[in-house]
């Protein structure tokens, strides 16, 4: 009884985050509705209702996870990691292909992307490692945790899902960077990555390489790999200060913008709602991350602290990279905009993380 009371009180304390997320749901639904138009015709009723179902389901999952004692994860960190690996393995065996990539597994009619689950399990595993007292040993402090990361990254890159692989590496990297581990290890690792990156270039698929070259100069192939960047910038820029109006963005409505209801949802919002609308969205995103990080003040448990930091990093990186690519300042990699883009897996993943966060904060009020 006491526990439940505690959690409910905690909800009240985090109402800014809760209201913000509700607002995200609303923005998501409205923008999805707009992006599913073509020349004034709405054609995506099915997609929209599916997304609304995902949103409802996510809230339920959030509730469940907010009641699960987070300490469980520390004990099960390796098990969960293994579970993540298992899901990736299942994708290899049974997963179906979409757009040239094997990313999804189907459970009861819902398609799930295991790489999203891996993002959660890597946060937990990294929190486990980085909350230990440092041994001041490169192998134990750095190499060991990052070999687990490496295994994930390697398997996911081969799906191929470059976006998720990069994201997992970055989450782990940032979690380590903002922990007690010696910074010189990272410097070493960075040099290693730089040395190895020419090699990894050869491991990339053609289209992944094309996207990277297109990022450096979209005009090399304006109708091919550079197309999305160019059209996204045109859409965002044409929104100007006040936007072109709801359902009136021509880049969106006349179908010039590919993948607009998934990875390029921000572009749709920026085109229709302009600089002011984008500014509001950016502000709320920043507010949510700030509120999450604010809560670390009271956390006494180093593991919990690292998990919350990881959750903050997770949201921050997704938002920064996704919007950065819509604005043409980062290369195009397949990443959703958290809470906004169409898709169930990332939504559930975000809500699970939110649930874990709520459970942790209810312990440290």
């Amino acid at each position, binding site marked *: 009884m006491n526990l439940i009371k505690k959690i409910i009180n905690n909800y009240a304390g985090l109402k800014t985050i809760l209201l913000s997320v509700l607002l995200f749901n609303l923005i998501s639904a409205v923008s999805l509705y707009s992006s599913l138009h073509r020349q004034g015709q709405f054609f995506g009723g099915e997609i929209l209702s599916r997304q609304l179902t995902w949103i409802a389901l996510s809230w339920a999952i959030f509730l469940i996870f907010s009641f699960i004692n987070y300490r469980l994860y520390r004990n099960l960190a390796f098990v969960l990691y293994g579970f993540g690996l298992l899901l990736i393995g299942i994708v290899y065996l049974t997963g179906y292909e979409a757009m040239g990539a094997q990313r999804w597994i189907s459970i009861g009619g819902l398609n799930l992307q295991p790489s999203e689950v891996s993002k959660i399990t890597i946060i937990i595993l990294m929190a486990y490692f980085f909350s230990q007292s440092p041994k001041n040993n490169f192998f134990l402090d750095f190499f060991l945790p990052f070999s687990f990361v490496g295994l994930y990254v390697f398997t996911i890159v081969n799906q191929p899902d470059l976006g998720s692989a990069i994201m997992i590496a970055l989450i782990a990297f940032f979690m380590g960077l903002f922990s007690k581990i010696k910074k010189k290890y990272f410097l070493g690792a960075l040099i290693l990555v730089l040395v190895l990156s020419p090699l990894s270039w050869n491991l990339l698929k053609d289209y992944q390489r094309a996207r990277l070259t297109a990022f450096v100069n979209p005009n090399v192939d304006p109708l091919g790999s550079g197309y999305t960047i160019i059209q996204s910038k045109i859409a*965002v820029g*044409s*929104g100007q200060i006040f936007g072109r109006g709801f359902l009136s963005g*021509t880049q969106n409505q006349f179908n010039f913008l590919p993948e607009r209801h998934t990875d390029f949802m921000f572009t749709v919002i920026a085109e229709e709602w302009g600089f002011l609308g984008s500014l509001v969205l950016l502000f709320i995103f*920043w507010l949510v991350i700030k509120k999450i990080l604010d809560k*670390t003040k009271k956390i006494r448990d180093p593991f919990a602290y690292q998990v919350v930091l990881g959750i903050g990093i997770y949201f921050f990186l997704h938002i920064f990279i996704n919007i950065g690519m819509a*604005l*043409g300042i980062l290369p195009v990699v397949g990443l959703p905009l958290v809470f906004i883009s169409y898709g169930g897996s990332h939504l559930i993943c975000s809500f699970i993380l939110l649930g874990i966060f709520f459970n942790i904060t209810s312990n440290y009020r």
Partner: protein
Amino acid sequence: MNLGDKKIKKENKYTLNLKRFVGLSFFVLLIALFNLQVVRGDYFLRRARNNYMRAVLLPSLRGSIYDRNGTPLAEDKAAFNIAVIPYQVSKDRDFLFEEIAQYLELDKRVLHLNYRRNLKFFFSPTNIVTDIDKQVALELKRRYPESVLINPTPKRNYPLGLEFAHLLGYVKKASFLQDYSKKYGYTPRERIGVYGLEQYYDSYLKGQDGGDLLEVDARGNAVGFLGRKKPTRGKDIYLTIDNQIQKIARESLARKKGTIIFFDSNSGEVLAMYSSPSFDPNSFIEGRGVGKIYADRDSPLINRATQSTYPLGSVIKPIIALAGLEEEEIDSKTTFDCKGVFSLGRSDFRCSRIHGLQDLTAALGNSCNVYFYQLGLRLGVEKISRWAKKFGLDSKTKIDLPYQRQGVIPNPEWKRERFNQSWYAGDTVNLSIGQGYTQVTPLAIALAINAIAIEGYLVEPTLLKRIEDRQARPISKKNIKVDKANIAAVKEGMRYAVTQGTGTARALGNLGLDLAGKTGTAQTSKDPHGWFIGFFPYQKPQYTIAVFLENGGSGSEAVRTAHHFLSEIKKQNLLQLK
């Protein structure tokens, strides 16, 4: 617990760092967003509009050009071009171009080159092959209905190219002439007349392009119609030229370099004006063989009637004679003795033979140089040059053609400016038989002689009969006030040249046209130029003819050409003699 507190304080440092990092990153996004939407917003809005709004050009047709009988000389025909929508073919472009190139038996690089050159927007038709056979175009559309478009555009065609090249000129796309598009607001796709009548009457001939403004989606499908501006056709113009006479002029000159000008003595309406060698203006439209035209050492692009000046030789003599009479240095009875040579100081000036005593009629008829040497000296250079100018020999004519050249009638001032030398009596002697520094266009001397024919009027020559239904302009002529009796005396001399003179024009006497005229053989550093200028019927002239042969040997050669020309048009009944 103490230890734990310490640890947490240290950990909070990480939170703070992370927050700073997040804040900074969001600031970067803000800057990028500001840059795209506020700083460069106008630019991107324009690009967005270019994406979804497509202006489809509805090209206007250029007015046709007809001869006086309605024979088409220049008209627009449809050219069939093959175009693609770049966005639609972005994936299989190579393959598609290769197939099309194979079908057309072209190098596929040509297609790629055209594509790159014409590419403006991802979503608007881009020509890859231009001006192909209609059936071939239809077949390509049948083979690749999804990928290619037939994009017809008007194309200028000159059915009688060679005969009318110098008169009609040709058109070019404004994009080739950057000055024009900037100065006069032509669009790059519009065609501009760049030579001949196409240039002179461009503002009438050119229509107004129209267009459709469409909304298109990314596949290039039109999904909305925003508006249309109808194209307006240019005006048709009718020339004074008679296509058949022009044809005879061409045949008469055959392979000789030179020009034939044939016009209505009283109205100045030009019935034929042909300059040889000629060129095919269609070459400039098709872009084929242009290099050869430019490289030709006989300069086929020059209209020898108006764009080049030559020494006149004896065809200037009627003007000198009239000047002598008007200035009362002589009368028609005055005689000079010709001993075959005229000595001035240490120089000897020759005549074609020993003519003996010559009066005006005889001197003109026999083309006696010695007579004119002495008359020239009596008149003096100032009077000669004043009369030559009065007859317009050193001015541009009023003909409706661009790029006319101006003649030169020398005088002491001119010589000092040009060569920094003084004027000698020998120069006057040379001037009085049209040699030395004298340089005149064939059209200008033809009009001057015609002024004698029609008793003192310089007519303004014209090639334009009417624009659509509007008559071109009233006949316009300038009165050079001269004594009718003096004119009659000179005309008599010119008639004598054709009927009895020892000059070369006598061959024309048998045509039955009551011709009067004057021949000329102008010395040059190469072969002499041949001249003949005449009019008929000499009592009341209706037609004037000028034949000029560049390095063509002599006046008698010009007379032969004139004979061929005149006998042909007479035979074909193309004259309307009253």
